[in-house]
């Protein structure tokens, strides 16, 4: 009997135990679970699971990334995100007036940002893949090296969120728009985790905040 671990939220499926409350009897083999079975905690696809003990063995050395951190070279959208981050910082310090000034700057830079030329799902998917393959491993290596616990925390959350994005894009490719029929799309406002369901999870499977921290994405699909 083997165990399988969710790469997004860390949920463990134990073949020996099954999930009796969901009608999966103890002893149900991984292969016997239906293909559209999803992680009961975060909704990640079956393919996002890996067999327990098999993950760490094939770790590649982290590629070296040398991206400049000069603020003068930031794109308008990056400047906008820096401003919304600083606005959040002001809110936490109970400075609503200063937060509003940062939001004003953020909105200006968002509108000044040129729209993507021929936006393409394939390009989105490949950037996500690149983050998982290169971006996160090298940032994690740098943060571990520097013993930077704060950075490691942010990376742990973002990497999980990136994996759920990948999982959802894959699912959409297979199922099309039907996957959103009669169901809601929710985003955790703290870590960015995305959940498809009738209601947001009681606690965020990535950052553990309560459900009221989730925003529902409105509009038609």
């Amino acid at each position, binding site marked *: 009997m083997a165990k399988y671990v969710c790469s997004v939220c860390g949920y463990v499926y134990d073949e020996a135990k099954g999930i009796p409350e969901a009608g999966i009897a103890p002893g149900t083999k991984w292969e016997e679970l239906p293909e559209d079975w999803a992680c009961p905690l975060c909704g990640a696809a079956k393919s996002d699971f890996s067999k327990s003990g098999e993950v760490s063995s094939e770790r590649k050395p982290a590629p070296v990334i040398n991206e400049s*951190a000069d603020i*003068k070279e930031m794109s308008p959208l990056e400047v906008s995100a820096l401003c919304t981050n600083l606005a959040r910082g002001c809110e936490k310090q109970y400075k609503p007036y200063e937060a509003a000034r940062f939001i004003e700057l953020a909105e200006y830079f968002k509108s000044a940002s040129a729209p993507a030329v021929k936006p393409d799902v394939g390009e989105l998917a490949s950037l996500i893949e690149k983050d998982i393959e290169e971006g996160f491993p090298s940032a994690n290596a740098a943060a571990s090296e520097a013993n930077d616990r704060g950075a490691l925390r*942010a990376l742990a959350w973002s990497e999980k969120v990136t994996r759920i994005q990948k999982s959802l894009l894959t699912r959409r490719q297979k199922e099309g728009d039907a996957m959103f029929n009669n169901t809601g*799309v929710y985003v955790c406002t703290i870590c*960015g985790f995305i959940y498809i369901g009738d209601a947001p999870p009681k606690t965020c499977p990535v950052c553990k905040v309560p459900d009221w921290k989730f925003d529902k994405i409105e509009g038609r699909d």
Partner: protein
Amino acid sequence: MAGKYAVRNIRLCTKDCLCLYVCPTGATDTENSIIDVAKCTGCGDCADACPSGAISMVPKEYPKQQSKTQTVKNTLNALVKSKSKQENIAAGLNGKLYRAIEKSNRIMTEDIIREAGYMLPQSENAKDFLQSLIDKNQPEGFPKAAAEELLKTFNNSEENNVMSENKTLKNLMAAFTGEAEANRKYTAYAKKAEQEGKTNAAKLFRAAADAETLHALKHFEVAGKIGSTADNLKDGVAGETYEYKEMYPDFVEEAKTTGNKAALMTFTFAMKAEEVHAGLYQDALDNIDKTEEVFYYLCPVCGNIEKFRPEKCSICGVSGEKFIKY
């Protein structure tokens, strides 16, 4: 708890209102639930008393930004660039999933950029960032005023403003007390000079006493201590009540113990007169909207005030003829 002040999270506030009962300065009694920073002394009693944990004590000065290594900054920045690009692509695609991905990427970017050295809006990094926005040749429509205002705010930290504001207020009230005291002192000296026939010195003392009155009144006004007449009458009731109920009884006892009969008499007269004054202020407050003219008669010996000319003063016994009409 020096260097902190109380803030209320309105979302958590369950209106048990314990903060109203424990605040020593009335900083929490605002209708809009924002605790009055100017009145908050930072004692923390409200935060301790609040049953719903809605009040936090926040520092006036924030610590420095934690330092980040260049490699950590560079690798995090690479992710910031990638996530921003993804936000941009998602923004151009139709459908709820892409709205969610757009938002999700923004949240990740914020979180990563914060860990790349932009935690605190008042940090040197954040100020350099604002300065770079101002220095850069920005297209029209750039809200330069917002960036400049933020930079200015974070350059003169809030504590300095609040501190110097409080210090000036204290100075104004100290100057008010000093000038008021000088006025009374010079008036006493002028009387003495008149008795001695030193009329020139007496005139100077009178003029100087009036000058100190001008100063005192201005300081008091600038300190913002003059309210509506109804408020001022209330303040009059409170001040006189304190004097006759708490201050003078102690002084009278002390004068009795030490056998200082002159002090005992002046304190006793004043104590009784202040009680009358408190009553008159309350009466005036109750009838503030009445237009019928009222006259007041002042006893020139003990300071008693009556609303009708008495046969003799009920406090010191001086003849009613001596009373001064107002």
